[in-house]
């Protein structure tokens, strides 16, 4: 099936998310849509999938114009989508999720037997190992993604849209996904692959369309030079590597010993983690999302219920203290999910900038706030961190994601710190701001502050870390130097210990990534 998008325009208020975008997806090709965060890729695909109504343009399938008023129409037309944020009901089983919306019935009742058979059939075809009766919420993200894929395939999708599918995967899982994509293509399914990761685009695409700020800025071949692609995508020359000075290590500042976290259901989510961080050092906690990093940072912040073990900052024990006491001890914290954990949407930018300091001088006392100090603080930080906002008293919810992240970072860095813990410090931020925020983090390190960075982005980890601790299933598999081989890190993220990973790499285990690097394709 040949899919064409002609002149698709979609506006939100006065913001043009898609401006007359043309895109042609030939049958049986992997067509990559490359663009930065906020470039309008997802908007375009949501238009294609009937979730958004376009303000202009048309969708043409095999030469005939179609119009989708809801996703049901799109599915009927043979378009399937694997969303960036999975569209799965967590409390349903794999089988239930797969059949939702086109349920087989027998005698008026649900025929879950038929659904299970279908799950097994499709799983077998692609070598997925999926239990039809497993609850989706108990599956790791990689498996959940496979559920999304079979969900689309079970509706005989001829065009499959994958929206940032690799964000939640290990390098190995990414390779597996790419293999699946190729297999699907070979069977005649067209694939639209949305990503901002150049190396993946180069590895798997048949054709590349680059969009920037809502418009198509170019077409490219997978053989195109990576730097050219990056330039096309960002609109200028980029290099993400930071000018990083050698770390000057000081005394041990944070000593974590055998830290354990148990969740409400009695499941141990953090399993005896030990490490130390020195003054003037960046320790990066790497790993695929959901392997205990969240629990680790929350345990240090006093946000977890049942914590055992010890975490001493200088000589003070952090475990067992309230969040407020931990913050008062000089810990700066950037939570991984800014909208959920860091920002109060109704509050102004100025109020959010003092959220964790609001009852301390100069911003306030135990009794009353000082609006003047709060305002002046905002007027100092907003230009310093280049937060784009109408004013200091605009609600923080009116800011774009990247600017919100700057607010969170500005807040954490706005005082003398004894320790900085930053989770996903640059998630959803545009390239220019990433450079700036990384610089600020390194400056903080160079001031002598011990810094813990939790990141699932290997690029970020490699750029910032002096040492890297890789987490897997609630434990630290090993702590390696900051310049460790990417393949070794990738294998560790998949559960290899440092030694085993090094052995494997020495024996020739490679990811697409490093192969491309060897071939001089990527930096």
């Amino acid at each position: 099936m040949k899919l064409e998008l002609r002149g698709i325009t979609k506006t939100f208020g006065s913001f043009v998310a898609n401006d007359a975008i043309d895109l042609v997806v030939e049958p049986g090709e992997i067509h990559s849509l490359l663009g930065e965060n906020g470039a309008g890729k997802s908007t375009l695909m949501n238009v294609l999938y009937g979730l958004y109504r376009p303000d202009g343009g048309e969708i043409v399938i095999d030469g005939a114009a179609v119009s989708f008023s809801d996703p049901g129409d799109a599915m009927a037309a043979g378009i399937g989508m694997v969303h960036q944020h999975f569209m799965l009901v967590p409390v349903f089983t794999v089988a239930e999720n797969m059949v939702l919306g086109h349920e087989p019935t027998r005698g008026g009742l649900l025929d879950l037997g038929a659904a299970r058979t279908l799950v097994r059939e499709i799983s077998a075809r692609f070598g997925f190992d999926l239990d039809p009766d497993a609850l989706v919420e108990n599956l790791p993200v990689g498996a959940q993604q496979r559920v999304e894929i079979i969900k689309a395939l079970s509706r005989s999708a001829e065009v499959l849209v994958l929206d940032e599918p690799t964000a939640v995967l290990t390098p190995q899982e990414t390779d597996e996904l790419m293999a699946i994509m190729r297999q699907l293509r070979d069977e005649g399914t067209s694939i639209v692959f949305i990503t901002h990761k150049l190396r993946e685009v180069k590895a798997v695409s048949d054709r590349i369309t680059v969009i920037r700020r809502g418009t198509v800025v170019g077409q490219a071949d997978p053989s195109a030079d990576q730097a050219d692609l990056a330039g096309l995508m960002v609109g200028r020359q980029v290099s993400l590597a930071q000018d990083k000075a050698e770390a000057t290590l000081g005394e041990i500042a944070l000593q974590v010993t055998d830290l354990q976290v148990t969740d409400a259901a009695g499941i141990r989510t953090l399993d005896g983690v030990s490490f130390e961080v020195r003054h003037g050092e960046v320790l990066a906690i790497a790993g695929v999302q959901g392997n205990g990093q969240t629990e680790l940072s929350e345990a240090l912040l006093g946000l977890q219920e049942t914590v055992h073990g010890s975490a001493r900052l200088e000589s003070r024990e952090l475990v067992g203290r309230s969040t407020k006491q931990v913050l008062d001890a000089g810990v700066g914290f950037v939570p991984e999910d800014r909208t959920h954990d860091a920002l109060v949407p109704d509050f102004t930018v100025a109020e959010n900038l003092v959220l964790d300091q609001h009852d301390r001088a100069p911003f306030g006392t135990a009794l009353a706030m000082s609006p003047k100090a709060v305002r002046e603080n905002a007027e100092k930080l907003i230009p310093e961190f280049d937060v784009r906002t109408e004013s200091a008293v605009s609600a923080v919810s009116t800011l774009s994601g990247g600017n919100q992240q700057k607010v969170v970072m500005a807040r954490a860095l706005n005082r003398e710190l004894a320790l900085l813990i930053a989770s996903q410090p640059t998630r959803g931020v545009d390239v220019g701001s990433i450079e700036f925020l990384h610089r600020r983090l390194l400056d903080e390190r160079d001031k002598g502050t011990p810094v813990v960075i939790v990141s699932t982005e290997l690029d970020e980890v490699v750029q910032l870390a002096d040492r890297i601790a890789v987490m897997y299933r609630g434990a630290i598999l090993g702590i390696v130097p900051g310049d460790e081989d990417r393949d070794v890190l990738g294998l560790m993220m998949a559960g290899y210990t440092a030694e085993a990973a090094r052995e494997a790499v020495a024996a020739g285990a490679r990811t697409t990534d490093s192969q491309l690097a060897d071939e001089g394709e990527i930096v």
Partner: protein
Amino acid sequence: MTTASAVVADDSEIQKKVADVRPDSWWHLPATTTVLGAVALVLFGLRGIPGAESSFALARDGDLNPLGIVPEQITVPSIGTAIALAVIALVASAGLWVLHARVARPRPAARISLIAVFAAAWILAFMTWVISERALDVATLLQGTLALAVPLAFGALSGVLSERSGVINIAIEGQLLFGAFGAALVGSLAGSAWVGLLAAPVMALVMGALLALFAVGYRVQQIIVGVVLNVLAIGITSFFFGTVMRQNPGMFNSPMRLPTLRIPVLADIPVIGRVLFEQNVLVYLMWIIVAVLTVALFRTRWGLRVRAVGEHPRAADTVGIAVNRTRWINVLLGSAVAGLGGATLTIGTGVAFGEEMSAGKGYIALAAMILGRYHPIGALLAALTFAFADSLQLRLGTTSAAEGGVAIPGDFLLMLPYVVALFAVAGVVGRVRVPAANGTPYVKQ
């Protein structure tokens, strides 16, 4: 890839490590039951009325009671029995201590059965104490329980229907009241309780439609809509009660009653016969609706879609399920069911409509729904629990206190159902899994 030796991975499902540490609050439950058991021992037992006897009336003349297997009345010494029951309760508490001390995470089945034993013994001890020098007709108590449970159960089912689809339904109270009002008004006009029975759900639909219009259509905060609609329902019904109905009660508000449908033979079984098989049509309807709804919610296409809408509306939308239409329909269905519950208050009990006659039952129904974990059967069981407290209160209030008997002030008895609901909500709610999208309006771009 080589060297599989060090691989920890098996990707199919997260391997769960159940920790052997107990939660820090593990002692709360056994401690609470122990204290309560001790209170029962002292208050109901040791400090009971010396020499008093408590009677429980069971079988009746004319019951199907071959050879008198079920005795007509059991009379026991109050103090001795209460002490014995309190000791049983304390033993159950001890069991809970042991259970929690030995295993960090005991099996729920063992835990729940011990709690059940404790609760039964404690309540019986209380009853033994409170009816010292009196007799309690158990069948009447249970019959009252069921009758009182009907409006609560219908209300709770209304909540289940609406909240499973993601719309918070605080307006159950208003729906009950409108149902009661509609049944009385239309029944009177038509001169037939059966017509009233049909009118009740239709009238309650008005409330449902308003809830859906504001909560789903205009995305107004759902709790606010619910609370405000309840006030509206009280206002409108009281207004008409004070005008039209008062001007001509014979025409607009005459008491009438749905006939009691007695199932022959079965109704003659001692104690439970009358409870289960000598009731009006609303009670039988309640059983049917609970059963139908249980199957429908968990075994049909409709139910799967409703639950998907309540858990993850966007996911439902992406597979072509009309989220807001589903919610509209469920809110309307729910309100109709609650209307039947309202009918119980007037034509079900044979009284005329009265101002604010729902008296907070809608909110207790809400508590029953939460306590019943958004499940029709759970909701029914919770409704029965609250109704038991209410029925007991009524029984104890009407049986005149004999000389020297235990006298609990009537107002405290009236408080009982509300206190039970308060404790139930506090004790259990934290552990209930709410439909994830409950209360969040769905906005399609």
